[in-house]
């Protein structure tokens, strides 16, 4: 590695903050210069991070950068450091790609809004803070970045402040989000009181051998704090409120990038700093002496993940707003990631990282299509939209790719990562013989099926069915909005077709970096520092899959089925399928029986009883009405859930650890 590359991480962060500053300085009058500044900042940070791929991900080096050259003196790291190992760089790659796509999209998507200079200033600050968080090697620095991230995200959520509910969503996000940030800060204060250092590498060396209730309580606080940034249960109502009202490009950032920061924090905390998820042989031996110690955190993280993914996917059934529905699915997919991270096996962690990456890609794509629909029609109401596939064929195709990916259909990337998730849970159940992990595996499968069901409903309500006459003049969105979506769609297909290459180049280095606590410590504090605290050196775990699959074969199958459907559609006569538009109202047939177990017909609703899964919802009505009331929309209640989460985490940690 060349010497000047040591400056790349800090430059990548600074260029985004500098972009924010210059854009607000010069961009008030001239829109072209402003856009150029933001674009240059985004591209520069993208290039800087990409150039680090070869030394860090492929050659396995670690960059430690001490700001102002405050290197550790006498083994005490007082200065602030940036430490970039493969795990940090993996998340940094996700961040810069998502920022680039979202930025390019907003140049065209936001063209009807005013005071855009504020938008781009906040957007660049948000990007810079998120990048700073994943590259940071200092706990307090992470907290500062979390706060900048929360502020800018709140401000951007409320950016279209005349939009129905925008201020309300932002206010809830701010109040309950500040509770999460406070939780992180309390955790930091408690750790500092015991350790007198905040450097992650030094903490990682000192914490595992340090047996004190205070540091365990600090873990509970930090976990809840980072969990609130990933919108885990019970913080998920915030995400739904914020996503539904934010501009689509910001929804991409919140779901694709901000939640990843929470996930990154939890991985770093559980695997590197506390090392309480047993990954090494030595730690497994330690956990035999104290079985509660290692296992409890695994059960806790996995349990939170399962609850999150199941509750959010069922909540999505109730939604009538396109983006609010997508928001619940987004958190449900983050639940998958957290679930497998808790398993503590190498396969589980790489499955989690893979799904985290895919989640950014397909969820970003879906939010951008929702934004395109909103931009073209001005509406996000699922009961009002319909039949847009004829007006917006490109967006419809993109949406179908995203929907197939998130539902885990082969050969898209969602299938590849979910397949790894099932195998990780299955293997864990086989190894431990614990019924809990069987439930996890089944819950993951059921959630995937429910996701598919929900997306069939969305596709039917928005893109197929009859067109509402109100939207007869709808036109396809501009090319500038479609290109970012196509980038994400191509990424969906490519990562789905070549999962073995992704595994080899991205996931394997990131996984071993996350588990290699000794390497992380030595890179910052000097060789032999970890050994002096008897941190076991890293033994790579081999990853083997219980089953194999051939993505190219699935692609051929998909192509041939699609061709067959097209041929039948082209050759077949049109008689049997009456034109759905105006003639439908004349036909005497009762629309009641047209769809599955439907209720009564409603105006311009694509499916009877406003819902394809009317029967399912009717049978589960008690659960759904309970959940509906539980998400009351009152900010006090959401704060109460957050405070309860902190209390529960504290009590569990005190009892079990």
């Amino acid at each position, binding site marked *: 590695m060349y010497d000047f590359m040591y400056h790349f991480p800090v430059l990548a962060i600074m260029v985004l903050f500098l972009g924010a500053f210059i854009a607000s300085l010069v961009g008030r009058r001239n829109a072209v210069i402003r856009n150029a500044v933001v674009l240059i900042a985004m591209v520069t940070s993208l290039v800087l991070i990409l150039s680090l791929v070869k030394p860090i991900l492929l050659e396995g080096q670690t960059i430690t950068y001490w700001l102002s050259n405050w290197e550790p003196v006498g083994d005490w790291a007082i200065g602030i450091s940036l430490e970039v190992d493969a795990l940090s760089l993996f998340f940094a790659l996700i961040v810069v790609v998502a920022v680039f796509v979202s930025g390019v999209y907003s140049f065209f998507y936001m063209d009807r809004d005013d005071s855009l200079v504020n938008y781009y200033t906040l957007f660049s600050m948000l990007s810079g803070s998120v990048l700073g968080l994943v590259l940071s090697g200092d706990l307090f620095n992470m907290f500062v970045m979390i706060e900048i991230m929360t502020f800018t995200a709140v401000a951007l959520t409320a950016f279209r402040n005349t939009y129905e509910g925008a201020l309300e969503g932002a*206010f809830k996000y701010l*109040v309950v989000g*500040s509770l999460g940030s406070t939780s992180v800060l309390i955790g930091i*204060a408690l750790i500092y009181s015991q350790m007198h250092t905040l450097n992650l590498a030094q903490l990682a060396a000192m914490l595992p051998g340090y047996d004190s209730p205070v540091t365990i309580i600090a873990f509970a606080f930090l976990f809840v704090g980072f969990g609130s940034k990933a919108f885990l249960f019970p913080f998920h109502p915030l995400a739904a409120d914020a996503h539904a009202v934010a501009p689509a490009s910001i929804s991409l950032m919140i779901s694709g990038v901000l939640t990843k920061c929470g996930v990154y924090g939890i991985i770093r905390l559980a695997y590197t700093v506390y090392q309480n998820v047993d990954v090494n042989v030595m730690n497994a031996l330690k956990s035999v002496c104290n079985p509660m110690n290692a296992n409890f955190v695994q059960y806790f993280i996995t349990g939170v993940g399962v609850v999150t993914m199941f509750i959010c996917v069922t909540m999505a059934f109730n939604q009538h707003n396109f983006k609010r529905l997508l928001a619940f699915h987004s958190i449900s997919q983050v639940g998958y990631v957290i679930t497998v991270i808790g398993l503590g096996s190498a396969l589980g962690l790489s499955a989690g990282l893979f799904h985290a990456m895919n989640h950014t890609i397909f969820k970003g794509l879906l939010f951008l299509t929702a934004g395109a629909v909103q931009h073209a029609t001005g509406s996000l109401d699922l009961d009002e939209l319909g039949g847009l596939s004829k007006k917006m064929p490109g967006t419809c195709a993109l949406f179908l790719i995203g929907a197939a990916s998130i539902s885990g259909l082969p050969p898209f990337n969602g299938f590849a990562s979910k397949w790894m998730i099932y195998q990780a849970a299955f293997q864990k159940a086989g190894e431990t013989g614990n019924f809990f992990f069987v439930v996890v595996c089944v819950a993951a499968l059921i959630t995937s099926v429910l996701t598919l069901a929900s997306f069939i409903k969305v596709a039917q309500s928005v893109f197929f069915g009859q067109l509402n006459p109100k939207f007869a003049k709808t036109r396809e969105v501009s090319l500038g909005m479609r290109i970012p979506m196509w980038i994400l769609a191509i990424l969906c297909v490519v990562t789905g077709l070549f999962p073995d290459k992704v595994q080899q180049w991205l996931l394997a280095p990131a996984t071993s970096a996350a588990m290699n606590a000794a390497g992380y410590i030595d890179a910052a504090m000097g060789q032999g520092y970890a050994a002096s605290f008897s941190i076991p050196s890293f033994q790579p775990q081999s990853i083997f899959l219980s089953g194999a699959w051939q993505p190219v074969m699935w692609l051929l199958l998909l192509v041939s089925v699609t061709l067959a459907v097209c041929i039948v559609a082209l050759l077949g006569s049109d008689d049997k399928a009456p034109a759905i538009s105006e003639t439908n109202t004349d036909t005497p047939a009762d629309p009641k029986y047209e769809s599955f177990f439907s209720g009564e017909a409603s105006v311009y609703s694509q499916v009877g009883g406003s819902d394809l899964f009317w029967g399912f919802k009717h049978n589960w009505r008690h659960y759904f009405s309970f959940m509906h009331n539980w998400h*009351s*929309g009152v900010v*006090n209640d959401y704060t109460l859930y957050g*405070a309860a989460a902190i209390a529960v985490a504290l009590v569990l940690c005190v009892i079990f650890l």
Partner: protein
Amino acid sequence: MIFTNYLVCFFLVVLGIYCMVSQKNLFKIAVGMGLVDYGVNLLIVSVGFHDGGTAPIFNISELTRSSFFVDPIPQALTLTSIVIGACTTAMTLCLIIMLYKQYGTLQSDEIRRLRG
């Protein structure tokens, strides 16, 4: 003396969270957020306090093995966290003003268009 500090900061945090949970008035929620902030700031400062220590301001030549001073890092952290707290309060008040203009009320249980 330092034990009183911990008691007070625990009391402030709990009072703040109680205020955020039970009070329906948006301004009182903002006050609750402020209370939680102050409690945490007090906690951080107390963590670095040594009884009888001097202020941590020294030249390199004055610094000896026997000099006894309070830990300067928590004070730096507290300053940062105070600034962040001020930003939170400012932003919350901004949003409350805008919410009042749009909804015409300050009651949190009447501001619930996004739910379910």
